[in-house]
């Protein structure tokens, strides 16, 4: 079996360390992987690791107030930077609280290393106190995982774990370490590079020139071409290549929600994002195109609706680093396995070498321009603050330069619709898993990673409540992550589905007293009082009900030097539009 070495080899030779405890070796490994922050909640089985972390000043350890908050923060950190996010928890309940973030990182291909303490190895399988089979429990939601039974394996395992988390299609890796392994003394050997018997784990995925040249005539012949760009653009760092390619070929670009910022949304060729709640023009363009160039995306059901009718008249080219995504949800005509940064970069060179002339797409571009003009994202003005309006005001007041995290639901869609993103890693959202409670801790992690940027969690009152305890973390750790809650006193997206498909019967979707529901017209009944809660945490907060105060309140939040909660009261009657009902087609798109 061929052994390959492709890891960034910071250490040319295996290095033998001084004698140390397993837990200290873990810290050494983290430092070698350039980890500068760990979100970690201690407990009996991970205490040794915390003690070892206390012996170094090279790693900042942030104590979240719930392991889920810590793990979402690690994801926020990873999504904002592209670096590996690291979270840590103790065995049993500490570990199980990491499961949502691990599943989330798996769905959205986010580099995450989750370290868990485990009970003493002699107790494994005995139902010891705070024991769960975390290795077994997380098997379906990890890129890879390890249960470390021999302390000598720690350096190799950490090197492999970080390589796997960040390389190829990124993803989460779990390392479960029994307490006796953390305590064991040994002389670590730090390997210079990773070695896998699987060639796949270290393979460079590069499209061949032959494959790419094959696309040139397709591009040249297209009359109604569209690029469908996904999160792969962001994880590959291929946004510059994509922009150059789109400009050279004059191809319009529609992204997915994961791909937001992979192409500048204010660019004339941008169709913004498409899918269930995406731009009508993006959806029509993809539906009617004759050539669909898919890069770094996976034909998610929220993008395609009924796959049979998805881009039915188009030649579909699918470039992705993960071969198992080809033909998985949709059969395509040309499947190319490649790192999308390489493929687009090489395509740009080939276009130049072949003196490529962009196809004549005048009619198509005119059609797209008409759709864009006639059906932009829009909402009706009212005497109350519309949630969309709040997002738009935030966009204007931050000049589009903030990092936006979100929870899950209506506000998540409005954030994507009315904030325009021109840079990658600015829209931080749980998209594949759709995990409520993601927003505020993710904003916290992003703010730790990017202290000089405004980081704002646009959240719903439902989602915000799910990890509200992280206000304490932000206060104590001096992390100026801000939350703008679009508070409609309901679980808005579920309410929307109730209104559209269930005759407006409320099935546990009201968050306050259902006999006296709070609203902009009934402010006394608003529940809970987020400003008072923030106050209890020592965090500044403000409620805004009047439209006339909205912009000034947002400005106050932006100007505040510390965490902040802005509670924006909005009507619950607003629906996210456009909407393609689940499993249907673009023809069924609801525009009002």
């Amino acid at each position, binding site marked *: 079996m061929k052994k390959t070495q492709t890891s960034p080899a910071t250490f040319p030779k295996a290095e033998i360390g001084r004698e140390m405890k397993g837990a200290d070796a873990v810290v050494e490994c983290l430092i070698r992987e350039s980890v500068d922050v760990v979100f970690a909640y201690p407990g009996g089985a991970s205490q040794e690791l915390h003690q070892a972390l206390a012996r170094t000043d090279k790693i900042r350890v942030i104590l979240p107030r719930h392991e889920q908050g810590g793990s979402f923060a690690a994801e926020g950190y990873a999504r904002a930077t592209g670096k590996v996010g690291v979270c840590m928890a103790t065995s049993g309940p500490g570990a199980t609280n990491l499961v949502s973030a691990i599943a989330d990182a798996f769905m959205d291909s986010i580099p995450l290393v989750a370290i868990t303490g485990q009970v003493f190895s002699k107790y494994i399988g005995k139902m010891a106190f705070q024991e769960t089979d975390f290795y*077994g429990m997380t*098997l379906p939601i990890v890129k890879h995982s390890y249960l470390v039974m021999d302390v000598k394996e720690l350096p190799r395992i950490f090197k492999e774990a970080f390589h796997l988390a960040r390389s190829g299609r990124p993803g989460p890796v779990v390392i479960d370490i029994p307490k006796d392994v953390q305590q064991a003394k040994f002389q670590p050997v730090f390997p210079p590079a990773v070695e*896998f*018997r699987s060639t796949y784990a270290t393979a460079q995925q590069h499209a061949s020139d032959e494959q790419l040249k094959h696309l040139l005539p397709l591009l040249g012949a297209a009359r109604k071409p569209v690029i469908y760009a996904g999160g792969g653009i962001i994880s590959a760092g291929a946004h510059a290549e994509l922009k150059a390619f789109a400009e050279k070929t004059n191809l319009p670009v529609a992204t997915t929600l994961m791909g937001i910022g992979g192409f500048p949304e204010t660019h004339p060729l941008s169709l913004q994002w498409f899918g269930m709640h995406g731009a009508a023009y993006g959806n029509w363009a993809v539906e009617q195109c004759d050539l669909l160039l898919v890069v770094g995306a996976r034909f998610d059901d929220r993008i395609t609706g009924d796959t049979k009718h998805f881009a039915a008249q188009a030649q579909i080219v699918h470039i992705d680093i993960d071969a198992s995504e080809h033909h998985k949800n949709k059969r395509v005509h040309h499947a190319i396995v490649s790192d999308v940064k390489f493929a687009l970069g090489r395509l740009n060179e080939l276009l130049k070498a072949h003196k490529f002339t962009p196809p004549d797409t005048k009619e198509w571009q005119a059609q797209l321009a008409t759709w864009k003009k006639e059906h932009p994202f829009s909402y009706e003005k009212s005497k109350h603050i519309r949630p969309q309006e709040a997002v738009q005001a935030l966009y204007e007041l931050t000049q589009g330069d903030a990092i936006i995290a979100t929870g899950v639901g209506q506000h998540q869609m409005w954030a994507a619709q009315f904030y325009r993103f021109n840079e990658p890693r600015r829209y931080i959202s749980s998209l594949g898993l759709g995990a409520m409670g993601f927003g505020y801790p993710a904003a916290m992690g992003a703010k730790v990673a990017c202290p000089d940027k405004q980081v704002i969690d646009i959240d719903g009152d439902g989602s915000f409540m799910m990890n509200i305890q992280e206000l304490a973390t932000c206060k104590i750790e001096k992390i100026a992550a801000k939350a703008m809650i679009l508070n409609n006193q309901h679980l808005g997206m579920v309410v929307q589905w109730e209104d559209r498909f269930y005759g407006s019967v409320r099935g546990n979707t009201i968050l306050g007293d259902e006999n006296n529901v709070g609203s902009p017209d009934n402010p006394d009944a608003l529940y809970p009082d987020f400003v008072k809660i923030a106050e209890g945490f020592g965090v500044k907060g403000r409620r805004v009900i009047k439209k006339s105060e909205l912009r000034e309140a947002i400005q106050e939040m932006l100007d505040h030097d510390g965490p902040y909660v802005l509670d924006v009261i909005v009507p619950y009657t607003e629906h996210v539009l456009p909407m393609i009902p689940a499993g249907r087609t673009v023809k069924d798109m609801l525009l009002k």
Partner: protein
Amino acid sequence: MRHTISVLVENKFGVLARVSGMFSGRGFNIDSLNVAPTHDASLSRITAVMRGDEAQLDLCIKQLRKLVNVVEVEDFKEGQAYTHELVLVKVRADSKTRAEVALIANAYDAKIVSLAADHAIVEMLGSDANISALLGLLEPFGILELARTGRLALKR
């Protein structure tokens, strides 16, 4: 359609769970699964028989290749591999029927490996088709218990 997939994996903790979990988690239908170490003790070979069309086979193979402990994946088209299966079948057989059971076994190159007053254990090594034929003929006597390895395969 049934496909024979041969998967060479690292002989490490949890690998079988990872592979079998991938099959179930991603909705692939597996008829049989056999696993044992190879001549290289650090590697095991998993032989799986999967039911599905060519597209599902292709997806299944690509998912297997993504698993970090999977070293090699092959699928064997008709005739590419030598395939065999071992079956042990405990069949009701007393002094009156024993001879007939022996006759059937003999016809399929199967052996009676254990005899009791009221039953016999027949061992057969063979192809799916022949094993099915044998079991069809033994069925009327009353099959009491059965164990089989699932298909094993090596590329020719």
